[in-house]
């Protein structure tokens, strides 16, 4: 295999760093309807105002893993531009997962927020 181990590991590390968040973002995107991989990338980019650029090296492994976990289902369909593509659809199990991911995300944001926005005076007392 031509790919060196370190390069592969890099990808893996990125997946791991993003894992929880990326899963949540994908599931959230699919809330609005079935979508293919390219569509998900575009949607996330648009929704985030060009801030979130998902690597394909993270996206496809994530999609296939989500499918294996039963959180999404896929099927081949024609797109509007007559392109045959694999569409992913969120399952009931996926919706539950999304809800719990979201809950956890909110707690983390709150926790980080409370650390970051501590008022100096209060901390001195």
């Amino acid at each position, binding site marked *: *295999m*031509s*790919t060196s181990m370190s*390069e*592969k590991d890099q*990808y*893996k590390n990125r*997946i791991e760093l993003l894992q929880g968040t990326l899963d949540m973002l994908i599931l959230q995107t699919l809330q609005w309807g079935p979508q*293919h*991989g*390219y*569509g998900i990338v*575009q949607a996330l980019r648009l929704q985030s105002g060009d801030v979130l650029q998902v*690597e*394909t*090296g993270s996206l*496809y*492994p994530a999609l*296939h*893993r989500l499918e*294996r976990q039963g959180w999404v289902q896929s099927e081949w369909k024609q*797109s509007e*531009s007559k*392109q*045959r*593509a*694999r569409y992913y659809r969120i399952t009931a199990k996926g919706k539950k997962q999304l809800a719990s991911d979201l809950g956890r995300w909110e707690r983390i944001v709150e926790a980080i927020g409370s650390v970051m926005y501590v008022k100096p005076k209060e901390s001195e007392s």
Partner: protein
Amino acid sequence: MKWFPSFGFQQRKRELQEEIDAHLQMAIADRVERGETAETAREAAAREFGNIPLVQDVTRQMWGLGLFEQLGRDVRFALRQLRKSPGFTIAATTMLAVAICANSTVFSWIDGTMLRPIPGARDTGDLVSLQRGERNFSPTPPFSYLDYRDLREQNHTFAGMLAYRNDWIALTGGAQPERAYIANVSANFFEVLGVKPMLGRFFLPEEESRPGAVPEVILSYSLWKTRYAADPALVGKSIEVSRHPLTVIGVAPEGFVGAAPGLRDDLWVTLDPLGNDGWRMTHRDWASLIVIGKLRPGVSRDQAAQDLNTVMHRIVAAYPDDHLGDNRITLDPMWRSPFGANGYMAATLPILLAIAGLVLLLTCANVATLTLVRFVARRRELAIRQSLGANRMQLVRQMVLEGAMLSTGAGAAALLLTTWTSKTFAWFFPPNAAPIRLNGTMDYKVAIGIAVASLLAGMLCSALPAWRSSQAPAIEVLKAESANVSGGSRNRKLLSALVVAQIALSLPLLLCSGLFLRTLKNLAGADPGFEQDHILTASVGLSIAGYSRDETMVIRHKIMDRVSALPGVKVASLTNWIPMTLRRRSVDAYPEGYVTHPHESLQVYHADVSPRYFESLHIPILEGREFTPDDKDKAPMAVIVDQTAARRYWPGQDPLGKRLRVVGDGPLFTVVGVAKNSTHMFVNESPEPMIYRSIFQEGGDETTVQVKTEGNPADLAPAVENAIHEIDTRLPVFDVRPMRESTQMASIFAVIESALAGMFALIGLVLAATGIYGVVAYRTQMRTHEIGVRMALGASRVDVIRLVLLQGLRLAGIGLVLGLAFALGLTRFIARLLYGIGANDPVTVVSVVMLLGVMSLLACYLPAHRAMRRNPMTAIREL
């Protein structure tokens, strides 16, 4: 877990490729729409996507491995692990191979005998052999021709029913007469067995009892090949059998050797081929046929027996005088048919297989011990793999796979070994007078047996240790210092249990072999009631070679005279039967005025003997006289009975002068003497009545000369043979051998049992001893540090020895107690095979327990001694 993803693997790879292509196409389309040129759009999209093969690779990893990929990886890993410890791998594989081979060897013998009762026949599972009257281990042929024909024609449960009887004949006509085993068979013999002729044809229904027809003969493949040079034009030609011309009508296919399991027929003729055996064909009291039936589909043995007994009941009611005694018919499947060798096989081989099974269990316990120790040594590796995300099932699967690899290797070795050991069964049978054809077979059934045994053994030796080892909490193992952890208390318990199991399993092995060996010794030492040493026997074919009755009598006298005159010969006599050669000769006896009890068998053993028979065999005549040269043709018919016959027929009376008939309407014989009881077939038989007639009065179909010699009887063999050939060079002389050699047949099964049980017990003893040694040594080594501390704190060497010894002996003690209970429960299954010794013989039990105890003590003492001699300071430092 997905089970068969590998079938869809290529498909999924293609789909992933397509998915990525679609992604790129859409990206390019978007860019072109935004005004980029096709070329730059493609480049940009590709750049944006990144390394396509890498994305594919990482994505594929998300699918999880399929069963086969996983298995392939696990197998490679297991092989790597086994290669790392060659000592363990070789030892475990060898032990398992030996144990599996022990089982497969015995099984191949069962396969070659009991499971293949009639080689060459079809559907032997539907065949049953019929027995009439009291069930007997080695019955005589139970049916007369007329009774057989009625049973065959009036039953409703059989698709066919054949009958046969065997005899020796001589193939005359060539330069030298050759003895052959012939079977007189019913016309449907081959049809019922489903055998098709290789050349010519078999008998037609109308030929069964057609008198005066041209006598016909069918040859076995091997006889056709050896004596007639595989002549393809032999069919239709005439050959000479006992000086009678017979026309060859067919040759049986290769491998088919008749219907008696374990015996070999050389040729077949109809029931009365020469038309000179009318008596046998018309008298219902002359039972000489062995009958085998083929059950109709769906009919059970019980139903068939009921059906036959209904028919038999009618026959007995119609001809009561010809059917005195017990007439109930019982049926046996061919694997344990009492006619032929399978009755003996069925009594011996399954028990040996069970004992071999114990050896395999014991070996598994031993290998499991080694495996557990090995897994404990690898616990850090296991813990690391666990913390890297391997779940418990994966670990167990991996470890069990290592066991499976071992046992597969062992199974392959056993398979190779068995191709050879299966053929060793024939070694047990010394040269003897019977056409015995017994050996093991190595076929697919044995191969399947080996596969199953290896699989089970692999599971047994690895599943338990694997399950235990996978339980260790990873964090603790990784934190703990390696020397401090002696495998955890659970492992210790499992190790102890395995040691106890090994001792408990080896005890019954030792006990069985002890009992069998004592039995063999008792059999060898038993007094059969006649002299076996310094006796040479030689059989001469007279009537079988076509000599007339008168010629036979003359030649017999000549043999007696010439052989007696040989230097080195003390006494010579004639007989038609040699005791203790697995040969039962019996007739129905009708003592005058004796009223039989219901179901009482009329059968008595009989032999036709010459004057001085009792003298040469040292059988005392208790009352009356021995036969004299005057007991010949014209003289009154004389009979000598043994004590059992005398007591049974004339209790409390003087048997001399009493009379009896042999066969319902035969002549009356007068008792002239009473001989002491002697052994007929087996030393451990229950005494059955025996009668002797004069060989010069009664025709006696066979002639065997018995010579009492001064020196080694074998030395006289050429001289005796010469003396007989001086009378007539064409006389076939065969089975010339010392009597000791012939009578070995009576203890042949005891020899087989004790040889195998002895071998198995030896394996068991070695395994048990190494097992307990290994565990005690291992544990002592693990406690080196602790022992060092104890010694530094003032414990004496004796204390250390006691510490180590006690721990081993406690296990040995528990094992011995459990094993004893186990063994005493098992020995009753072999009680039937023992002689002169109880199944729970205290002396044997105590010696076996002592032997195992001493071995255990020794096995524990070695590591204890080593621990004691260590310097406490180095012991403490050694972590």
